[in-house]
């Protein structure tokens, strides 16, 4: 398929919208399913592989309205049920169809603080868009209403307008909440607790906020500017932000409660412990965890070679191990850093790949190659301890395993060596062990994930947890969902305490 520019797609939409604009409320369901699904405008693949600018450019106003008119406004709202934070999806889409973007923004803001981020990085095809009636009618989940893109459209529209609607906040309660980690879970907790009138402090180990949104997800999928804007909102709300502070090391978690008088602590330290394959040669020069590779590129700005002090390893031929979104991000980043050849090694087939379809598609367009049913057996080094190749094994698919995916089996004696100078390992992340190592009161399972009850409370008094530190490496929106739940529990606990303190005071006063 040839690439259509944003201008071409916008022009096309201007022509199409004329047919529907007056019939916005009267279109029959059948007519709605015939409205053409809008294609997301993207940067030209040949240009974008040399820059870090965002790949997806976003809908034009006409495109957004056409896409919104495809929504059937179902009575049974599958999309809302499948959204981890329960956004009123048909509600805001209806406003977009009518061109009332401001009302759409207000509806979204009732339930989510970070629509510009979720609209970009949520896996909508497995959530809100999975059971969309339009997708079902057209027998293709990819033809569902593009809810995520519409959410992003509204968030971008609001940001460009320069309007920022601060959520309503209750008067100060005098209670103090510490949020450890400023990833998606922590940001939600900070906002939700601040709204209740509590004093909130975010502690971040890095010099910049955002956690995995900043160091992990590349600029070309989620521009830093967008994270900055969301954090500015927290700042304006009066959330205290302390960077370069490693809870567990700079201060023990216990001390936050005992010495610094925080009434509640939320631990959202994420799944920041890279998993290696445990194969020969993994410590050779030229082997990176995806975390390191992406952190150098994203947080440390290695792409801006003239300005940044943090260097990036220069590569010609790169093998990326893994089939998730992080593997796609790493492969696409390697292309942008000038690697001539980048291939992804995945031991199952494309159908089983956990990465989002859209990301795989984008990677292919940018020239990333895929070697399916192959896996690394060992990394081969030269006399100087540098990578010179990777020994691979071929696989075939057998019976489905407990995850429902067909289990890969290695084919005996199928080894072969491919010449590469760089290997990026993107097979997953474990839980960051810093908090559990330094806070024995917090119980963890054998994978190091913090154990919580249904209210997100840990085994330690006043301490809650959520996001990847509880779930293992998951998604931004699931982390936000957990953050929301934890904040509700914290707010409830603190409200109860305030109530009993007030009662106590009243008794003391009446005693006198």
């Amino acid at each position, binding site marked *: 398929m040839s690439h259509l520019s944003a201008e071409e797609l916008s022009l096309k939409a201007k022509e199409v919208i004329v047919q529907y604009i007056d019939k916005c409320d009267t279109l029959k369901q059948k007519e709605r399913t015939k409205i053409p699904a809008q294609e997301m405008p993207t940067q030209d693949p040949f240009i974008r592989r040399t820059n870090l600018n965002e790949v997806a450019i976003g809908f034009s106003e006409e495109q957004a309205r056409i896409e919104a008119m495809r929504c059937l406004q179902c009575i049974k709202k599958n999309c809302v049920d499948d959204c981890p934070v329960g956004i009123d999806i048909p509600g805001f889409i209806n406003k977009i169809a009518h061109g009332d973007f401001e009302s759409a923004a207000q509806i979204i803001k009732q339930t989510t603080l970070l629509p510009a981020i979720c609209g970009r990085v949520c896996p909508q095809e497995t959530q809100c868009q999975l059971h969309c009636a339009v997708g079902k009618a057209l027998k293709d989940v990819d033809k569902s209403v593009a809810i995520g893109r519409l959410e992003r459209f509204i968030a971008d529209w609001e940001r460009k307008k320069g309007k920022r609607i601060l959520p309503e906040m209750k008067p100060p309660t005098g209670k103090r909440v510490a949020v450890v980690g400023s990833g998606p879970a922590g940001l939600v907790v900070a906002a939700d607790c601040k709204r209740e009138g509590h004093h909130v402090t975010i502690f971040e*180990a*890095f*010099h910049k906020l955002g956690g995995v949104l900043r*160091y992990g997800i590349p600029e070309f999928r989620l521009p830093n500017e967008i994270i900055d804007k969301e954090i500015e909102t927290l700042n304006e709300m009066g959330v205290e932000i302390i960077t*370069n*502070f*490693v809870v567990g*090391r*700079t*201060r023990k978690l216990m001390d936050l409660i005992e010495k610094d008088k925080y009434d509640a602590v939320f631990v959202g330290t994420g799944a*920041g*412990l*890279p998993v*290696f394959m*445990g194969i020969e040669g*993994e*410590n*050779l*020069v*030229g082997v*990176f*965890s995806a*975390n*390191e590779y992406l*952190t*150098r590129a994203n947080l*440390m*700005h290695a792409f*801006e070679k003239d*300005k*940044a*002090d*943090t*260097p990036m*390893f*220069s590569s010609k031929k790169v093998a990326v191990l893994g089939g998730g979104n992080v593997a796609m991000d790493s492969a696409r980043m390697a292309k942008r850093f000038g690697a001539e050849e980048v291939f992804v090694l995945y031991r199952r087939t494309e159908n089983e790949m956990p990465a989002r379809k859209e990301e795989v598609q984008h990677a292919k367009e940018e020239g990333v190659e895929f070697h399916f049913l192959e896996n690394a057996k060992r990394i081969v080094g030269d006399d*100087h*301890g*540098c990578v010179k190749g990777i020994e691979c094994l071929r696989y075939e698919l057998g019976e489905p395993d407990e995850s429902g995916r067909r289990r890969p089996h290695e084919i005996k004696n199928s080894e072969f060596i491919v010449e590469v100078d760089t290997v990026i390992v993107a097979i997953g992340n474990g839980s*960051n*062990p*810093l908090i559990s*190592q330094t806070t024995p009161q917090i119980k963890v399972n054998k994978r190091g994930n913090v154990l919580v009850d249904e209210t997100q409370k840990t085994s330690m008094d006043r301490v809650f947890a959520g996001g990847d530190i509880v779930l293992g490496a998951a998604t931004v929106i699931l982390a936000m969902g957990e953050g929301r739940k934890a904040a509700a529990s914290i707010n409830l606990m603190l409200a109860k305490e305030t109530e009993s303190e007030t009662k106590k005071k009243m008794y003391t006063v009446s005693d006198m």
Partner: protein
Amino acid sequence: MNKIIYKEQLSKDVFLMRINAPRIAEERRPGQFIILQTDEDYGERIPLTIADADTDEESITIIFQVVGKTTTALSMMLMGDYLPVLVGPLGKPTHIKNFGRVICVAGGIGVAPMFPIAQALKDAGNHVSIIIGARTKELLILEKKIKKIADEFIVCTDDGSYGRKALVTEPLKELCESTQKPDMVIAIGPPIMMKFCSLTTKPYNVFTQVSLNTIMVDGTGMCGGCRVSVNNEVKFVCVDGPEFDGHQVDFDNMIARLNAYKSIEQQKQKCFVEKTFKQKEELV
């Protein structure tokens, strides 16, 4: 933001700084390190061992050698300037107890991280022998300060310009062979020196602890850039270390990994120095 409250040049390329950092000063233990950046947006994160701390002054002491762009930029900062990024204390503290007879071997700038460890070992009741060495006399630092702790003290230089003309491994070998065999050796210094100290003590079966200073990005276990092979297992220097059993560390692999960016780093430093001189000339 952390203020530089004192700066001193110890030798040609080695500087000492005391930096205001109340929390780190309070929490740090011997053996731990910090990470700093000289520029918040584009700076690189470098680990430096904490050489000392003063809780009254609320300061920590770092001692660093100018080797690349960041240490060059740091050496140009002045008393009263602020460091934009300083985080710590990181890593596991040194295990301190009464081992009996301990030999502390420090090479070059390794005397700086050795100081608090030797002090703590002495306070714990150990007999502490200290060997310090450098290429030449001008590169020796903290001699007087560390000598005060030592029950036995040996200085060597490679060129014989001061003290004994020898590599530190020579007196180390002699002490291992002496009638009072050491119970433990701690070696801190350039990787090659720690490698040969470990090789020296191996035949005598004396436990030898080394403190590794690898390339790091985050310093909290997130990137794995600092990983080393210890007894054929992957270990992260930032969270599992920085101290390991020297007899089990794969030093050759570690040295290769340390040199991964050498040419880029040298070029960056050269550009930086040239640019800075040009700016100064223009000012004049």
